[in-house]
């Protein structure tokens, strides 16, 4: 196990990248602490798989270094890095039994059969594969196949990091939840550093202690699930995490006051934005309430999602979502929206530009 440091990492799939747009990864500096459970979250094509393949050694970055415990491994091939990776689609060796599949990484490294037996039995136990050990792996269900892939990743005790590249994509929804909690449990038992790549916020937030949010080849925020939800550092994070995501409303700032649709909107704290920046107000739907006072709005859509109702309103051409408990208003009704002040923030050019008021959580 090791601490992983990414230093000034950049990667382009073009041989001679010219503009920043040619880079799939733009300048990444990141430390992964030993034993942490990380999620790498971002939409498809944001560079998270590229980053993963660079850590595992399947890709050599165009620029920058990768250090494992301070040791430069940038040029090392995957088998020399002592890492494990689980892929989107289960990779199993069809002709082998489940036991041989799990034993494969150990045997390739010349471990003796007694050690192999001990490790394979222990891993099979953890993954509830013990009954299947003698079966041919070829005819198992997708979730069992994916468990074997995970098992091959976890079977070596000395791995620096185990990486999961959207491992639950092909798994049925009801088994997804099971495997996800299994993974979390495994992390608590083996205490290896784990990096879990996904575009699914639920998977990321349930698995990880720390979530790294990526967008267009950049890391936009690193934080605990609660931090990402409470104080998104970037409108992208606010929008991407949450269902529905944060409301992002165009705002004019003058004399330290932010205005939306002509009305002054009280913010959580003083504005730190530089003049001339594109400014937006961000507020999560959870903190928008329908009341007797506030912004006049028209209800355009009401969807009952079970636990609560999502009310979609229109204010001066912008869409504002509000989450209310119980039945919402009728479609077409005129309502007034109230923003909870300590949850109303200003973003300048996408980045957070207000200071939290004293005592606000």
């Amino acid at each position: 196990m090791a601490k992983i440091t990414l230093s000034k990492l950049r990667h382009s799939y073009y041989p001679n990248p010219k503009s920043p747009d040619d880079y799939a990864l733009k300048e990444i500096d990141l430390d992964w602490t030993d034993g942490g459970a990380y999620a790498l979250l971002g939409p498809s094509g944001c560079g998270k798989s590229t980053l993963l393949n660079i850590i595992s050694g399947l890709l050599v970055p165009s620029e920058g270094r990768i250090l494992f415990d301070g040791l430069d491994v940038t040029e090392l091939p995957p088998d020399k890095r002592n890492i494990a990776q689980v892929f989107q689609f289960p990779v199993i060796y069809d002709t082998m039994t489940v036991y041989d599949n799990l034993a494969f990484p150990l045997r390739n490294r010349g471990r003796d059969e007694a050690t192999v037996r001990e490790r394979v039995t222990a891993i099979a136990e953890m993954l509830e594969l013990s009954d299947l050990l003698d079966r041919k792996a070829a005819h198992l269900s997708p979730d069992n196949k994916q468990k074997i892939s995970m098992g091959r990743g976890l079977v070596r005790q000395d791995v620096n990091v185990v990486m999961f590249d959207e491992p639950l994509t092909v798994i049925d929804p009801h088994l997804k939840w099971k495997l996800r909690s299994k993974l979390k449990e495994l992390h608590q038992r083996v205490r290896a550093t784990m990096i879990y790549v996904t575009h699914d916020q639920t998977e990321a937030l349930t698995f990880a202690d720390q979530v790294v949010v990526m967008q267009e080849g950049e890391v936009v925020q690193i934080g605990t699930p609660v931090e990402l939800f409470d104080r998104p550092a970037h409108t992208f994070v606010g929008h991407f995490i949450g269902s529905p995501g944060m409301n992002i409303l165009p705002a004019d700032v003058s004399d330290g006051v932010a205005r939306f649709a002509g009305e002054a909107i009280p913010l959580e704290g003083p504005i730190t934005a530089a003049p001339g920046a594109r400014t937006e107000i961000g507020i999560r739907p959870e903190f928008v309430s329908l009341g007797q006072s506030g912004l006049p709005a028209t209800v355009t859509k009401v969807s009952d999602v079970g636990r609560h109702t999502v009310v979609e309103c229109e204010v001066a051409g912008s869409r504002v979502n509000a989450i209310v408990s119980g039945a919402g208003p009728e479609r077409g009704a005129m309502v007034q929206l109230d923003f909870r002040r300590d949850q109303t923030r200003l973003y300048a050019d996408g980045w957070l530009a207000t200071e939290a008021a004293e005592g606000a959580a």
Partner: protein
Amino acid sequence: MKTENQKAWFFVLPVLLLVAFNALIPMMTVVNYSVQETFGDNLFFWQGLGWFEQILRSDRFHAALGRQFLFTFLILIIEVPLGIAIALSMPRKGFWVPVCLVLMALPMLIPWNVVGAMWNIFTLPDIGLLGYFLNHVIGINYDMTQDPLAAWITIVTMDVWHWTSLVVLLSYAGLVSIPDAYYQAAKIDGASNWAVFRFIQLPKMKTVLTIAILLRFMDSFNIYTEPFVMTGGGPGNSTTLLSIDLVKIALGQFDLGPAAAMSLIYFAITLLVSWLFYTLMTKDDLN
């Protein structure tokens, strides 16, 4: 509804008729000949299983069958590993893929008798490029019209030249269907190149290889045109394979009865070997 299901038969009927005319009826004619003796004038005499007995006991048939198995064995043992090796070394993506594929497909596009004629001219000792080179430049005595070994080397080489591509193309199709993740996982699992071949590539190629071997078996077991054009079964009888012998009996000697019996035995052997091979290869997939 049951009555509606019966309609399906009408759609199968044209195919049944077609198969009847191009396979069943000719085959039944052969069965008919195989149990009768004729001296011309369309006069037939009942012979029972006599011709079958005669063929099965004949040394000539045993020799031809032996040569046939040897030929098929030799070309399979060369073409299959060679085909896999070529497929493995072909590029997986990029500009060279279509170039390689077209080059590979070329020999298969040439008609059988042209291949025979080409190789005949190519290897003739006095006028052939290869034949002249071997005999007069290097000084090896190589003459497929005189020397049985040279004749065998020539027909086997020719078949390898003509048909290895089939194994290559089928293996290649199997190889490109393997997702990258398999190779990446194998790298991370620390697998050697041999292990990658043994546990990933070979299992993924198994189905297409089974088909390739089956096709090559049937085709080489029934080969006629190329050796006929090249050696005519000679020198002596050394390259008289089953089909060449069959044509000699049927059209050369006009012994319709024995020839018919021999075709049926020939057909039965081809069918039996193909069935055995296919059953053995797909046995694992069923459970």
